């Protein structure tokens, strides 16, 4: 095992930070490191926090960190912000709302840009969560970018997902879109001191009621909680609900099953990505792509030809 892997497992902050950098940069050393720490992961409770832009996710995350620290949990935070699709650059500002935890040795906060990934996460989010897990953090909080209706990849990654809504984003249904209501295990209406809270709360209640009716086998009843995160109100109830959901998962095989699903999906994703890269690398592939661009060949035929070439080559990239 490399020194860095040993340092990660010993919980050393600089080592964990460097490991996440390599994985985010897709440096080969990142994959090597993951190989040596992977067996030690699978312990942390991974929690997603998602919701529309402006719902107060960072402030809520900050409040949850404070409450978890009061309960003596060690907490890793992955805060994701969008990268520019044009320049690849990003302004990652989530730390501003979490500044009070900067000097707590039992809190590790990492800002990550989406780097072209859709769905509310970065491609490296799962890997970063594994590193924090290996470092011994009890809880990993993943704060997604502000999402719309279907950018809910975090649900596949987390054991527990908190959906954050907020009054006053216009039409009540818009406060949290219908697609978001289908995901998630804990619902929070943040900024509950604002006008429109009662209406938003009623809307959430109705949607959750309909959801429960359509899922008779669901043994977890998703709680609906209120919070005013910038005044530190509601953190205790949310962390109680997180602990209840963890017990619920662990009372069956839910915890391991969710972890396993996530890792299997990552393998499938990696294979897709690398196979596509291998298939598309050849000169023939480039010629076919050019032909599609010039409208001499349609995309379906081009894909079939490429796969046929690849298979006849024994699966080796030409």
């Amino acid at each position, binding site marked *: 095992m490399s020194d860095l892997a040993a340092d990660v497992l010993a919980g050393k*902050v*600089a080592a964990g*930070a*460097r490991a*996440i*950098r390599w994985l985010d*940069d*897709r*440096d080969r050393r990142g994959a090597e490191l993951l190989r040596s720490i992977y067996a030690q992961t699978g312990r942390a409770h991974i929690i997603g926090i998602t919701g529309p832009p402006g719902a107060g996710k960072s402030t809520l995350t900050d409040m949850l960190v404070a409450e978890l620290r009061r309960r003596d949990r060690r907490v890793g935070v992955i805060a994701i912000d969008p*990268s*520019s699709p044009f*320049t*690849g*650059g*990003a*302004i*990652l*500002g989530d*730390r*501003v709302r979490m*500044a009070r935890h*900067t*000097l707590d040795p039992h809190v*590790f*906060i*990492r*800002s990550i*840009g989406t*780097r072209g990934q859709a769905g509310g996460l970065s491609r490296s989010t799962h890997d970063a969560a594994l590193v924090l897990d290996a470092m011994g953090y009890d809880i990993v909080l993943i704060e997604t970018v502000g999402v719309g209706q279907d950018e809910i990849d975090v649900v596949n990654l987390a054991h527990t997902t908190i959906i954050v809504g907020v009054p006053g984003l216009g039409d009540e249904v818009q406060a949290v879109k219908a697609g978001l209501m289908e995901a998630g295990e804990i619902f929070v209406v943040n900024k509950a001191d604002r006008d429109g809270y009662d209406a938003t709360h009623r809307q959430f209640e109705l949607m959750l009621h309909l959801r429960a009716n359509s899922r008779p086998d669901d043994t977890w009843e998703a709680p609906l909680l209120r919070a005013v995160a910038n005044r530190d109100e509601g953190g205790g109830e949310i962390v109680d609900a997180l602990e209840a959901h963890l017990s619920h998962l662990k009372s069956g095989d839910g915890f391991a099953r969710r972890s396993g699903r996530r890792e299997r999906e990552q393998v499938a994703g990696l294979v897709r*990505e*690398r196979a*596509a*890269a291998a298939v*598309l690398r050849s000169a023939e592939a480039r010629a076919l792509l050019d032909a599609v661009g010039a409208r001499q060949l349609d995309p379906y035929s081009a894909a079939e030809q490429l796969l046929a070439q690849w298979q006849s080559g024994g699966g080796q990239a030409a």
Partner: protein
Amino acid sequence: MEDLPERPLRVLLAKLGMDTHTVGVTIIAHALREAGMEVIFTGLKQTPEMVAAAAVQEDVDVVGISTLSAGHTRSLPKLARLLREAGAGDKLLLAGGVIPEEDQAFLTEAGVHKIFTMGADTRDIVTYLRGWWAERQAAEAA
């Protein structure tokens, strides 16, 4: 795809001390983003201890400090020392803002790698960072 390293430069920007003027640091943050860099903004009223801790957790390449009030002759050398003690002495430490000519040699001696004073063109900052990053990557590859 897989063979191409994707390493955007990561830059932490922070303001030390009590001043709350954010116009300059905001403009620089946007200029660096436009140049394809990842900017981690940690906010106002940061102490050297907070900046050093955040720089390590974020594994940034560059730490940029904006200072528009006095105190930089104490806080910047302290930050440089804390970064070295945290094993992060290889990060590029930049300072910008109101920094009198007579302080600059002292700060450079104390570990600030480069100083941009008021009115510096953001394009010059981008050019400087790109040059430094290219050199750093070439040195790592060698």
